[in-house]
């Protein structure tokens, strides 16, 4: 008999090959040790995905994990994690998305949905049963709209159908964006999953939850979230450019001479049309900009950086149109922009025929070709690492990836603690699982000279992210908390009834990070994986406030070693037996 609240204590495992599902109990000990979201998702992936499996094989598991806070009035808690072995990296990918899918998925009476097997033909999963679909070939937005009468929908676009290794899964206008989870779903020939239900979890101390929720909501209106509320993340762009931290022309520079034209400061006054928010969110970070002929798109820094400066494109209409097209096709904007920017540099070096930097029409055409795997797009659908391996001629040195995943919009030479975060990240170059850039933007470290002393602090940002991603809470709240661990413990106590403490959550977050690392080791990680492309280790930035900055290989190695030591792992990054014993896999 379940004695704790906030969870259903079971997950739903559905075999797409046989069309049958089963509810499988989840021990309280597992839930308490790994919580929900990426923690529970990673634990289920260990359990449900065979070692060494091809990420696109039927046997590969695709996990949708909810969390104890979903369904509560706590702001930003309507989130879920999608977890699978990434077809882009061969390592774990844990991607987050938000809004009604989380709420209605959990109301199915489960803490997670695990999909295994593959459909015999293109199908959708509705009310626990597979249905053949004629939505194959349609955009994710069209699929979501068509299936809306049956519940809340997560769907793939054309890119997922064509197994593009950085295809997304979309729901409620949001996307589980990184690591190619849409390709995993596409390989299963599953166009969409629809969730609905009425089973709510009880709260252990509802008045306490409500009080915490009211206080958190109130604080979420304060200055710590003002930028997200008023300007959105694209407010980063001009400041990053000034610091020479704005990746430009495939990381050949940290400044872009047309940055102002793409900045929130310049675009917002004329193009901002509306603001939106996810379900259960008081921040409202979604900024909708107009472009072209009466069209509109949600604008984020990462979209604009990847499809703009990274590709040498400064026309806002072109960048916003490309961003919208990525959403429609179901492409991760960061990996799409990164891979195309890599191809543009290859073209400029004469290694391939294709569009060059600044060619907006070429960018749009390549997005289509990638999503449909046509021509050069078939190669680029594999991501920059595989493309570089095929192109050869040393192009791997400037393929903008770590472990196969393309870098987000943080120039590592200009933000060298973040560079460490990229190098050791379990899902590859990642700004959402490591917040080490916060240290670079502080008086704690020298952003242009990474040091081993910063490694412990960098690991701390990963731990905090792991906790927020397991609870799940939006990271835009992080500046709101005075003490994330203590306040999270108070939330969990009120929701679940557990006597959880801040100290327990400190251990929990480190455990989740180790759990993901353990998965990667199982799937073939070696210490050589924790590095950066040669460009960052050998070419100084050419201009701007970070001119001359580079990360000598020895410096990066010292930082990685210090990071591993700070975690209690071996110097090379292997997990000691004590960690495996503690994980109890």
């Amino acid at each position, binding site marked *: 008999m379940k004695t704790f609240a906030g969870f259903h204590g079971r997950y739903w495992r559905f075999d797409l090959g046989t069309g049958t599902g089963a509810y499988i109990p989840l021990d309280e000990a597992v839930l308490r040790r790994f919580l929900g979201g990426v923690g529970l998702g990673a634990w289920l992936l260990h359990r449900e995905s065979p070692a060494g499996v091809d990420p696109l094989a039927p046997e590969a598991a695709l996990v949708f994990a909810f969390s104890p806070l979903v369904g509560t009035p706590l702001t930003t808690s309507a989130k879920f994690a999608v977890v699978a072995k990434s077809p882009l990296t061969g390592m774990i990918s844990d991607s987050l998305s938000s809004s009604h899918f989380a709420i209605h998925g959990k109301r199915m009476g489960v803490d997670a949905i695990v999909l295994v097997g593959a459909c015999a033909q293109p199908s959708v999963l509705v009310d626990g049963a597979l249905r053949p679909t004629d939505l194959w070939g349609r955009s994710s937005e069209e699929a979501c709209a068509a299936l809306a009468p049956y519940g809340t929908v997560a769907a793939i676009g054309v890119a997922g159908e064509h197994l593009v290794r950085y295809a997304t899964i979309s729901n409620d206008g949001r996307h589980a964006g990184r690591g190619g989870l849409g390709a995993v779903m596409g390989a299963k020939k599953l166009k969409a999953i629809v969730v609905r239900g009425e089973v709510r979890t009880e709260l252990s101390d509802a008045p306490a939850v409500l009080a915490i929720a009211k206080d958190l909501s109130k604080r979420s209106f304060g200055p710590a979230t003002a930028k997200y509320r008023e300007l959105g993340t694209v407010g980063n762009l001009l400041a990053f450019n000034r610091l020479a931290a704005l990746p430009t022309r495939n990381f050949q520079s940290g400044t872009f001479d047309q940055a102002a034209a793409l900045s929130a400061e310049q675009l917002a006054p004329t193009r901002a049309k509306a603001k939106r928010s996810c379900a259960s969110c008081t921040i409202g970070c979604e900024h909708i900009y107009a472009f072209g002929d009466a069209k509109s798109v949600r604008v984020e820094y990462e979209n604009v950086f990847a499809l703009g400066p990274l590709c040498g494109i400064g026309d806002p209409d072109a960048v916003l149109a490309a961003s919208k097209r990525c959403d429609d096709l179901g492409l991760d904007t960061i990996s799409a922009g990164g891979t195309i920017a890599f191809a543009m540099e290859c073209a400029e070096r004469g290694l391939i025929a294709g569009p060059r930097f600044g060619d907006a029409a070429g960018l749009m055409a390549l997005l289509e070709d990638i999503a449909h795997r046509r021509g050069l797009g078939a190669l680029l659908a594999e991501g920059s690492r595989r493309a570089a391996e095929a192109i050869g001629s040393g192009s791997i040195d400037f393929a903008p990836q770590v472990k196969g995943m393309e870098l987000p919009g943080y120039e590592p030479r200009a933000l060298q603690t973040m560079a460490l975060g990229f190098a050791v990240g379990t899902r590859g170059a990642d700004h959402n699982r490591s917040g080490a850039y916060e240290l670079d933007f502080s*008086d704690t470290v*020298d952003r242009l000279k990474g040091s081993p002393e910063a490694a412990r602090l960098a690991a701390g940002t990963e731990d905090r992210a792991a906790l927020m991603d397991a609870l799940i809470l939006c990271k835009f709240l992080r500046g709101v908390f005075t003490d994330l661990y203590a306040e999270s413990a108070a939330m969990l106590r009120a929701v679940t009834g557990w006597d959880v403490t801040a100290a327990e959550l400190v251990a929990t977050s480190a455990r989740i990070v180790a759990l993901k690392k353990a998965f990667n080791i199982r799937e073939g990680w070696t210490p050589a994986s924790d590095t950066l492309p040669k460009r960052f280790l050998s070419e100084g930035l050419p201009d701007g406030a970070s001119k001359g900055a580079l990360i000598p290989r020895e410096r990066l190695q010292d930082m990685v070693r210090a990071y591993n030591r700070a975690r209690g792992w071996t110097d090379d990054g292997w997990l000691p037996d004590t960690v495996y014993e503690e994980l109890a896999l």
Partner: protein
Amino acid sequence: MAHSAIVLCGGLSSRMGRPKALLPWRGRTLVEHVVATLRTVVDDVVVVTSSELDLPRLDAVVVRDREPKLGPLSGLRDGLAAASNDLAFATATDAPFLSAGFVRTMLGFGRAAAPVVEGFVQPLSAVYPRALTTTADALIAAGRMRLLHLLEAADFRSVAADELPEVESTRNLNTPDEYLGAVRRDDPGARAQVELFGLMRTTSGAATIDVDAGTLGEILDRVQSDFPMLRLRAAGEVAKNILVSLNGQAFVRDASLPVGAGDCILLMDAAVGG
């Protein structure tokens, strides 16, 4: 007769809050200014610095202080070892009023010599024979770390202030007040610049603002006074909701930090990421 000069800039600049060598002075950094002044008098300049400090390109030989924790005697020892000539004038980097005439006069004594100003020997405006390198090693080994011991070992010539031109050459700057006082006296119209990003730019309508040189706190107060919609200060500190970068390099939060002529303060929203 050819001479050398040594510039010591390996100190921590802890009271100044930022590296003194890199303080702006007359359109360039202080170390560039001092080196350029010395180059009009001597044949070679040796700059002794710490491994942490990234100096601009200088018309000088730059050596890293081998044992920076030992203080100026260690740095001077390293400087003398790298000097090309038998006699070297040694100065700290924070000597904005150092004059060529002063240096020339000091070197004219042709031996170890140090000015005495207001009753105090000034060992960082003094002349040292290169041959003192081994004496410096011996003093360091004996734990006698004061530069005065080195001068005494060389039987130095005391030079009275009235024997010297521009005795202000011996003046050093250790605190923000001393630096900003020197800046204002040298150029009463000294201006710094503030660049606004993100919400601060959209709410104030201002992208760049010229301000008088001053401490960071004074400058933020001035900007906030001109743009009351901004929240730059809280309880005497830099407000938590903003990030402050000095010249696009270090991020700073110390309100007493000196901001000199030509410095640029970048103000950004603290919530970075996403």
